């Protein structure tokens, strides 16, 4: 059936309400099954041996003593994960990251693993594995790594994207450039130009649930994997390819997920667990410790960014330029490229140029973190925008309104915008009572804007109608933020039944067609589209069954408010048939009733947000408290407003942590100094004010309800909003994130000493 995704401007009865989530009871009672809650008879405990060195050649690994230890059932090294990637460089990197092949590339890089009958034995076995390393010079800082004399992490890497292929290898893997117009001309026209350099330290998504899985590989080539993931279909593809399994024979079931934020879009220990199970012939459970999560999963990039913006006296930006260097860990990525695309996306610019450099460092492989790469670029750009507004003597909001992108604006990264929400969020902020609230001594207010692309992608759902008239909805996008509730609302809306009659589940990889991951804020956007489509297909069958029951042409049957209705005067004496009536009779009218959908959800609408933040800084200690915070963001259409607000608040909370205290701290030895929640300081509850939210709804023309993704944009403005607030509170421009108390105090002291 052809599916029309265009926005239809309809009225809603279920969508937009706030029912209790279907997974709520299980979660508050502790019954919900997370990654580490799966168990199998005879399962072994898997543990991974990790490199203590930031950069070292693995000269030899002797596992013989570990193998002889009673209770050890398998010991593996890279030899047990042969290279089956067939020239696919990205897959080879995933393989090498799962288990180092020739060199350990960061502190925490896996070099061997064991499966034993219990955790104690497994730990003892790790101590018996002898690894001979040749320690190499290392580099962990993004700017140092980009220097010519820096230790080379991979001598096969030559910078891509340069006009001429370089003669020497480099840690800079790629140069990318975006923009239009002529920035030289634009700067020449400017009355005011501000140019500054910024740094942001590496942060981790900080999900509370560590990576966990149970792998069970059978001798016949079939296998099961129960795992905490944002994308079980992608995990299946990757694991099958790395292990040489057939995709359809590897069944991956996703658990409940205690946070992912991008970090669970990538396999880390799962191929190792499968390899251990294959060798041991028994199921293997592998749960990362917090230390391992920090050292060896995928944090976001550390960055170094230069921004230059010029404007006329009337407040028009004449040119904007940025150079962005993002760390990738030891494998190539496209993180600076994304930063270069998003940096100026909020603005209407005649002359704009951004250049991104991807930089290899001896740190864990960078993974996505909620609107990956955008928060750092926004921090740098929005800091300079604020400073420029001050220089011009313009209000920070007015200056942004004057330069905001609109429908029809050619974006800084290429495409021309459709209807967008940057202007409306700024107008909403301008009239928000927060902007007029009085401030006390040592307090300051800041605001900033943020952009994210959003993504659609491949999606597949099944909607099955039970004989009692209740509906089960099987989706393939992992529920990370309440999407089962939202998608149940969508099914209820389409079928015209009550929300309580729908139960949504996340199906395993053997039960549905391929689904892309829950990333790019696509979960509710894409799966709602597929659910609308699946419900439409089910309604077609419901109408056919009613027509058959009434013995009238199906064209004369319409579906309204949960009932089949015979259309026209001549059928006046036919009472409508409810979904329940039709379902009850289905066994006699042609069997089960279901709707299926497979589609590529194109047209994810871009998303914008503007945040307002008040901070108080203790001038004697540099300690910063966020005392008030407001998020204004365009949702297109909020399907379940409570979970939309939750996404807004969650992004702001993570942004606050990033802005103020979170950072990877490496010692001179290249080892991570703070791989735990004591010294990697995410905010605790009492650190945060109640985060106020305002949902704007500027419909996305490419979705029947107007839905846009909402999950990521909310982390884009906070770094900048807080930096602007701190700057306004203490009169010093902070250019290094996190703005930890020692950094703020040092900046204040430098200012005081003149």
């Amino acid at each position, binding site marked *: 059936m052809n599916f029309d995704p265009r926005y239809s401007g309809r009225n809603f009865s279920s969508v937009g309400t706030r029912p209790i989530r279907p997974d709520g009871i299980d979660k508050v009672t502790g019954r919900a099954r997370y990654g580490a809650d799966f168990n199998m008879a005879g399962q072994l405990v898997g543990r991974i041996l990790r490199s203590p060195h930031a950069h070292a050649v693995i000269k030899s690994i002797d596992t013989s003593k570990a193998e002889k230890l009673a209770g050890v059932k398998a010991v593996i090294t890279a030899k047990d994960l042969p290279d089956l990637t067939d020239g696919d460089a990205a897959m080879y990197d995933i393989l090498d990251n799962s288990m180092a092949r020739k060199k350990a590339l960061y502190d925490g890089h896996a070099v061997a693993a064991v499966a034993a009958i219990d955790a104690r034995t497994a*730990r003892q076995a790790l101590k018996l594995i002898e690894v001979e390393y040749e320690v190499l010079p290392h580099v962990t800082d993004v700017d140092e790594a980009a220097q010519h004399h820096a230790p080379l992490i991979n001598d096969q890497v030559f910078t891509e994207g340069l006009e001429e292929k370089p003669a020497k290898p480099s840690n800079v893997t790629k140069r990318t450039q975006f923009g239009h117009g002529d920035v030289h001309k634009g700067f020449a026209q400017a009355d005011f130009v501000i140019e500054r350099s910024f740094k942001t330290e590496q942060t981790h998504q900080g999900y509370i649930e560590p990576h966990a899985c149970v792998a069970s590989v059978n001798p016949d080539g079939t296998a099961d994997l129960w795992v905490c993931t944002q994308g079980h279909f992608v995990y299946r593809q990757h694991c099958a390819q790395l292990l040489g399994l057939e995709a359809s024979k590897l069944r991956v079931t996703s658990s409940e997920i205690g946070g992912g934020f991008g970090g669970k879009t990538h396999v880390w220990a799962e191929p190792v667990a499968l390899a251990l199970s294959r060798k041991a012939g028994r199921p293997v459970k592998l749960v990362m*410790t917090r*230390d391992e999560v920090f050292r060896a999963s995928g944090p976001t990039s550390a960055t170094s960014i230069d921004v230059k913006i010029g404007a006329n006296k009337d407040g028009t930006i004449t040119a904007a330029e940025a150079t962005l260097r993002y760390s990738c860990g030891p494998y190539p990525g496209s993180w600076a490229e994304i930063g270069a695309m998003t940096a100026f996306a909020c603005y209407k610019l005649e002359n704009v140029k951004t250049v991104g450099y991807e930089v290899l460092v001896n740190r864990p492989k960078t993974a996505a973190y909620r609107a990956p790469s955008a928060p750092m670029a926004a921090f740098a750009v929005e800091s300079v925008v604020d400073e420029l507004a001050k220089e011009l003597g313009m209000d920070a909001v007015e200056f942004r309104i004057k330069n905001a992108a609109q429908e029809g604006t050619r974006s800084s990264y290429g495409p021309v915008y459709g209807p967008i929400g940057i202007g409306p969020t700024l107008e909403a902020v301008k009239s928000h009572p927060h902007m007029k609230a009085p401030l006390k001594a040592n307090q300051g207010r800041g605001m900033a804007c943020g952009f994210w692309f959003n993504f659609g992608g491949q999606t597949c759902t099944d909607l099955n109608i039970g004989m009692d008239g209740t509906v089960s909805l099987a989706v393939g996008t992992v529920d990370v933020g309440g999407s089962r509730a939202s998608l149940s609302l969508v099914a209820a809306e389409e079928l015209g039944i009550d929300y309580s009659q729908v139960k949504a589940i996340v199906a395993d990889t053997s039960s549905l067609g391929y689904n892309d991951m829950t990333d790019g804020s696509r979960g509710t956007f894409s799966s709602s589209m597929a659910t609308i489509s699946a419900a439409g297909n089910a309604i077609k069958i419901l109408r056919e069954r009613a027509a058959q029951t009434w013995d009238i042409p199906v064209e004369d049957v319409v579906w309204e408010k949960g009932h089949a209705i015979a259309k026209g005067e001549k059928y006046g004496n036919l009472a409508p048939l409810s979904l329940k009536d039709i379902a009850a009779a289905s066994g006699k009218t042609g069997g089960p009733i279901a709707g299926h959908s497979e589609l590529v959800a194109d047209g994810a609408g871009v998303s914008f947000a503007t945040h307002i933040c008040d901070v108080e800084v203790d001038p*004697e*200690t*540099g*300690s910063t*408290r966020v005392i008030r915070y407001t998020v204004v963001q365009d949702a297109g259409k909020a399907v379940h407003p409570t979970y939309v607000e939750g996404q807004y608040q969650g992004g702001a909370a993570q942004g606050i942590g990033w802005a*103020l*205290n979170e950072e990877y*701290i490496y010692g001179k030895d290249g080892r991570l*100094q*703070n791989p735990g929640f*004591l*010294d990697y*300081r995410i*905010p*605790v509850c*009492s*650190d945060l004010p109640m985060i106020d939210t305002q949902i704007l709804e500027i419909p996305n023309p490419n979705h029947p309800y107007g839905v846009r993704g909402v999950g990521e944009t909310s982390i884009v403005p906070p770094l900048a909003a807080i930096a602007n607030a701190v700057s306004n509170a203490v009169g010093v421009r902070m250019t290094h994130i996190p703005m*930890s*108390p*020692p950094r703020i*105090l*040092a900046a204040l*002291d430098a200012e005081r000493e003149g």
Partner: protein
Amino acid sequence: MRYIRPLSIEDAVGELAKAVGPAAILAGGSDLLVRMKGGFIEPELIVDIKAIGGLADITETADGFRIGAAVPCAVLGENKALKQAWPGVVEAANLIGSKQVQGRCTITGNLCNASPAADSVPALVAAGAKAVVAGPSGKRTIAVEAVPTGPGRTSLAKGEIIEAILLDKRPDHAGDAYLRFIPRTEMDIAVVSAGVNLTLDDKGAIKTARVALGAAAPTVLLVEEAGQVLIGSKLDEATLQRLAKICSGACRPIDDKRGTIEFRRKVAGVLAQRAATTAYKRAGGK
């Protein structure tokens, strides 16, 4: 691994004295269990002291207070007499970890863990608290500052257990206070900290004073010169400035993941000033 739960201090001492492999004393377990789970230690013997008579009690004596080694910090906060006499010690104990952790952790454990950043220790040192040590050769009473000798190291000999912490009875016009700097609001570890204990004469001038700093050196520092500078003053601005300078100067901090040398020096002075101001008010000074 062997776990035992003796009923007398003599049995506990005896078991520890004859232990062959690594042994650990378990009270609240908020340090021990974390270290075991993290794989940092693998004790062969664990001696749980919570069932030993008297160790779970706070006793008010003619000389002051006796706080048993197994008394959880939360219980300190519920003891009105102790809180009134030593508010600084109690507030320090009630800053450790989270509410849940405070239901388990003890000030004796905090002392014996020998972290320079231990929250209750600067307050205890400022308070002039003493530790009652039971060992194979009998009991002895020592100043708390004599217990830690370096990060993770104590002066306790094999077989020795601290069975109680002693705090003096308070005279009139006495007050103490403890402050720590953490980048968050709770569930964190001190970047630097200060405990101040004062008594005043009838005119409101400071008669005795003890100032201790945490996370400023390998062990908690008793800064005698800082106490001296306060004596005789009514905590005027010039005295507070001198206090800050002395405290900053007394620090021997390190640059680490929690803070820089500069930051710790400076904030040690700020916290000493603030803690002294609070202690002075609590003592009835105006």
